[in-house]
């Protein structure tokens, strides 16, 4: 009896959490007529098709492809997403790893520095981008890849510091001291002795930051236009020639947007809890 109840409750949860994903996945393979017909709900695709994906990726040049005529498929936004998220991740890591080590090993910047850094993540980006917007316009960084990368790097930097700090703290102090005794400089000890100890954590941090940047919508909404639009923003502005909703096409792009973080996220499942809690819960 207890077991039945348990399985029943798990099933209710499964339905609630699974259904939205089922809906977007099936929507992406629905032909136009099944997308959102007035008055009826098409629960499962009657004649599944890959047209939506081909259209969105600009592979399909048929006349009924709304994105063939505008010469603007989701390909460019997807590429922009990869470039901006990747660049932002590199910047955040480059700056963040050193800061994390300095804080963990030397308590550099005093006890307040980690606080100040994490505080950055608590501020609503919607407020922070207001002065950044006209500052970037003035510096000619607005609507550029460099501009996006700088903001992405800066916004995910606190995350790198806190997560990497927790990994560095796990490395015994003796390891770097031994390397120094063996004739390494502090820098040499960091690169040759300490960094290899946190390889796993470093990889997980990198993937985390990439996912965070990949998921951005607000920054790119304020900081770019057309040319450097990334995929999430493109998704929200997609509409057909008639200006109506393009559920099928949007769902296809949605699926393409979900896949990279889902795959990356599951590959670092071991570090998920630690990452999501800024290194507070080590699991």
């Amino acid at each position: 009896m207890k077991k039945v109840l348990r399985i029943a409750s798990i099933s209710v949860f499964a339905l609630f959490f699974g259904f939205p994903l089922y809906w977007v996945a099936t929507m992406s393979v629905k032909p136009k007529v099944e997308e959102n017909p007035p008055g009826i709900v098409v629960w499962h695709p009657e004649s599944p098709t890959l047209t939506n994906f081909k259209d969105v990726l600009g592979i399909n040049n048929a006349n009924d492809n709304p994105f063939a005529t505008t010469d603007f498929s989701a390909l460019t936004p997807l590429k922009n997403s990869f470039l901006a998220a990747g660049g932002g991740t590199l910047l955040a890591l480059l700056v963040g790893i050193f800061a994390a080590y300095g804080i963990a090993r030397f308590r550099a910047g005093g006890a307040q520095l980690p606080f100040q850094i994490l505080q950055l993540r608590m501020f609503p980006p919607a407020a922070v981008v207001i002065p950044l917007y006209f500052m970037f316009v003035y510096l000619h960084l607005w609507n550029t890849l460099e501009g996006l990368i700088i903001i992405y790097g800066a916004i995910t930097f606190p995350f790198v510091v806190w997560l990497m700090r927790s990994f560095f703290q796990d490395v015994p102090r003796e390891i770097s001291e031994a390397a120094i005794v063996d004739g390494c400089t502090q820098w040499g000890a960091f690169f040759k002795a300490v960094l290899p100890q946190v390889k796993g954590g470093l990889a997980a941090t990198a993937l985390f930051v990439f996912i965070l940047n990949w998921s951005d919508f607000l920054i790119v909404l304020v900081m770019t236009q057309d040319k450097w639009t990334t995929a999430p923003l493109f998704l929200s502005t997609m509409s057909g020639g008639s200006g109506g909703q393009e559920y099928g096409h949007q769902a296809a792009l949605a699926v393409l947007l979900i896949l990279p973080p889902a795959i990356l996220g599951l590959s670092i499942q071991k570090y998920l809890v630690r990452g999501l809690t800024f290194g507070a819960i080590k699991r």
Partner: protein
Amino acid sequence: MSSEPLAPNTGPAPRRRAGISRSDKIGALFVLPGQLLMVFIVLFPALVAVYIGFTEWTPINGTTFWHAYKNWHWFSGYTEAFGSGEFWSAVWRTVLITVVCTFVEAVLGFTLAMLLVKDFPGRGLVMVYFLLPMMVVPAVSGFIFQMLFQVDGPINGLLSFIWPGDVTLQWLSDPSLAIWGVMIADIWQWTPLMFLIFLSGLVALPEDQMNAARILGAGFWPQFTRLIIPMMRPILLIAVIIRAMEIFKLFDPIIIMTQGGPGTATQNLSVYFYRLTSVSGRWGYACAVALLVLIALSIAAKQAIKPIERAQNESLEELMGAGAEDVPAERIEDAIDAGARA
């Protein structure tokens, strides 16, 4: 530099010598690039925001922000904010969304974690299944729920099965429903995070104490309220803080589902900032309001970060042990007594 150590046990500190030691210098070098980045992206814009906040500047008429002083108006932006109904309603809406979503996500997440804590074949796969919503780009989850909440959409369709007649709720265009639509989307996406954090805590519960309580006949409820909850407390706290602080910033799904509307029905602070600049073009006022909120938040953030910082220096077991520090012996006996009485 502050002399008060906020983290009492951050491991052995480097030995301090008189004056600036070599290792201090190296440490400073390590953090320097990060500090420069913060100056560029935080300090500099913050100063600019303070300046613009004293003006009624807008870029629309072509003046650069250097010349904002021409529309100088001191504190009128700030006084306007304090008297603005729209601002306060955005504040309360943000608080409402934060409180409701955090609470529901914590309860659902905890329930699901309790349901899945015992091992069974295929548990790994079930776990992955429940983690998926969290991996969805928030803007995409907004789009998904926009589809689901259409009047002809599947949610009304599902409701029509269990409710007599056709359900035609205007989820996203009815002012009283829209905010719930937005919250449901957030709950769907982020309950998995709570679930994952709680599950890792539940799995790490000290077995012997749990077993002792069980063998000695403590029922589920005494075990739950007197052992599990107290030990999980630090983890609950961290999860709630982290979620609350994210929900406070909520933006992407709202913009996609409702643009803050209908009217201002789903306009939280983030959406309010966005609309002030991109719709009303009131940049000076937006800076003033943003600064007010940031000042309030930095006070809150200081308190919120403490438990996270404390936890970073401890293993999960130590963390949970600390939660149960004043608990163990008597609490277990209590639990057992209660179980025996039942």
